[in-house]
């Protein structure tokens, strides 16, 4: 089968293991990621793995695209060690604070600037934002079809993939023609761990940085100011209840108190 030019979109996210450290910038109402190590968004590792597997089967090239502050470069290096051939870091101060559409605009510009592509793969959703919107929006901007939340994918011929998706009631297999944008679930594959050899190889691969000028991006549609959605307000959940703490000399006493409080008597419950 023909080799494929594959683009993978990767978001560096705060390490999920350290997510309790996250804070909010009260002015911009965005997440402060400072001090928390960035890692590849978990589902994007599956997206990368899917691309690398397709390349290993029939050749081609895997290019990673990421909109990120310069600190994202280390994450890019990691994607190269995991099998990507090249990484494009889309980085500019004016990209900061973009919503999903503003982000998709930058990614689309980066992918277009890089040239021909057959397939774009993204993770279905990010660990931190979790909106799951960028994949479909990117496809709209690139003018191609899209399939979100793919749980299984197989290349069937030069121009077609067979993918599986599930909604609430059905599982569907779809035959999709390239070029297409896919977003994948974590079950789509088992992402490979970092290998020493991969890290050694990554040193010979290229990371290119593009900014808004190189991408010829119209500032009106990017970053915090170019985002159609804005965060107006942040507020803590309404802690509307204050627990009455049940205490006692023994677990038996506490258990009895609890059942009395909820009116659990003979012949079952009553609330």
């Amino acid at each position, binding site marked *: 089968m023909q080799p494929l030019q594959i683009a993978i979109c990767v978001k560096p996210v705060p390490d999920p293991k350290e997510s309790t450290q996250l804070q909010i910038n009260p002015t911009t109402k965005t997440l402060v990621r400072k001090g928390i190590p960035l890692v590849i968004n978990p589902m994007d590792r599956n997206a990368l793995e899917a691309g690398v597997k397709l390349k290993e089967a029939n050749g081609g090239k895997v290019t990673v695209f990421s909109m990120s502050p310069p600190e994202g470069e280390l994450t890019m290096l990691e994607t190269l060690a995991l099998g990507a051939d090249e990484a494009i870091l889309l980085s500019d101060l004016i990209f900061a604070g973009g919503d999903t559409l503003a982000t998709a605009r930058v990614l689309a510009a980066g992918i277009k600037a890089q040239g021909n592509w057959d397939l774009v793969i993204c993770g279905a959703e990010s660990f931190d934002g979790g909106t799951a919107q960028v994949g*479909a929006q990117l496809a709209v901007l690139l003018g191609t079809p899209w399939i979100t939340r793919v749980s299984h994918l197989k290349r069937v011929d030069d121009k077609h993939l067979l993918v599986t998706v599930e909604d609430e009631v059905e599982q*569907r297999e779809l*035959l999709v023609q390239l070029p297409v944008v896919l977003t994948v679930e974590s079950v789509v594959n088992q992402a490979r761990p970092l290998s020493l050899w991969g890290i050694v190889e990554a040193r010979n691969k290229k990371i290119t940085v593009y900014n808004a000028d190189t991408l010829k991006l119209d500032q009106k549609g990017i970053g915090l100011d170019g985002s159609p959605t804005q965060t107006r307000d942040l507020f803590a*959940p309404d802690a509307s209840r204050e627990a*009455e*703490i049940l205490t006692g000399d023994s677990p038996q006493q*506490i*258990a009895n108190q609890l*059942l009395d409080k909820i009116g*659990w008597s003979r012949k079952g419950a009553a609330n």
Partner: protein
Amino acid sequence: MKQVWVFAEHQAGQWTSVTGELLVAARNIADQLNGELNVIVCGDQVEELAATLKQWKVDRVYLSQHPELNFYHPLVYTETIVDLVSEYGCPEMILFGATYLGRDLAPAIAARLGTGCAADCCDLKLDENGNLLQIVPGLGGTIFATIVTPFHRPQVATVKPGMLETLGSSENEDKAKALKPVEVVKVEPRFPQNTAAIQLHSVKQKPAKESGLQAAKRIVAGGAGISGPEGWSLLEELADVLGAAVGATRPAVDEGWASHDLMIGQSGKTVRPELYLGIGISGDMMHTIGIKGKGTLIAINQDPKAAIFKQVDYGIVADYRSILPVLIEEVKRREG
């Protein structure tokens, strides 16, 4: 006149539950705006179903029927709705359920129209200028954010199932008999030139995995504090004697103690039990946002500072391993 649009989704010949929830909220919003509530229905042979929308006092239905619409095709659905916007005037907002389909379609339509899309809202309100306040949980699971789309129309949003109040269905149907029929506007679907790039190859019904969690009157839920499968068995035994369904937090599911369909919260189910007992649960909003209603809530947690104690009616600060066995015995004893 200002228009509020709802995409009414149906599965297996019935409205999805979130469709009813959206329609109640949207009718309310349309009334506040002195506007119309118009509903988009796509499918094959869905005219009779569309007629049932009158129970939500819908003003107009844009009905697009075609055998090909029986299957959700992202391009066809997107372009059909984009056509509607240019044909019938830009609505103030288009609301979708945060289902597989809604989460796929809504952001695509927003991108086509160059407008904003708020994902997985748990509440919708209007501000004094008529902007939609889209309340989303997020940013690490400890906070709510209010998202607005102030300078673009339509405001597009997906709303998580189970979050908005709905009317009792029987009460609705009675009222509906007295209501006038809905005006139906038939619209042609739009098949863009690359429609054939996505073809349905096979369809399989998913086995109904009804855990009964959403309808359960009593729920015993466990979190990371259970710390192992043995503890989980103890929790299941308590649920059993209480006649309760078992629920779980994401960490408990990730650990493999509970299956994914038992997950309560932001990425799981929304429940409205009369009695909820949370064991070894810290109280992260990602979980507790899925607990609704006015039932009695109880928490057992070793940590007296756990956030869960600010969200429940009764708390027990203890190692659950010391409480659960006696609680199980006491329930059995009281049962006789």
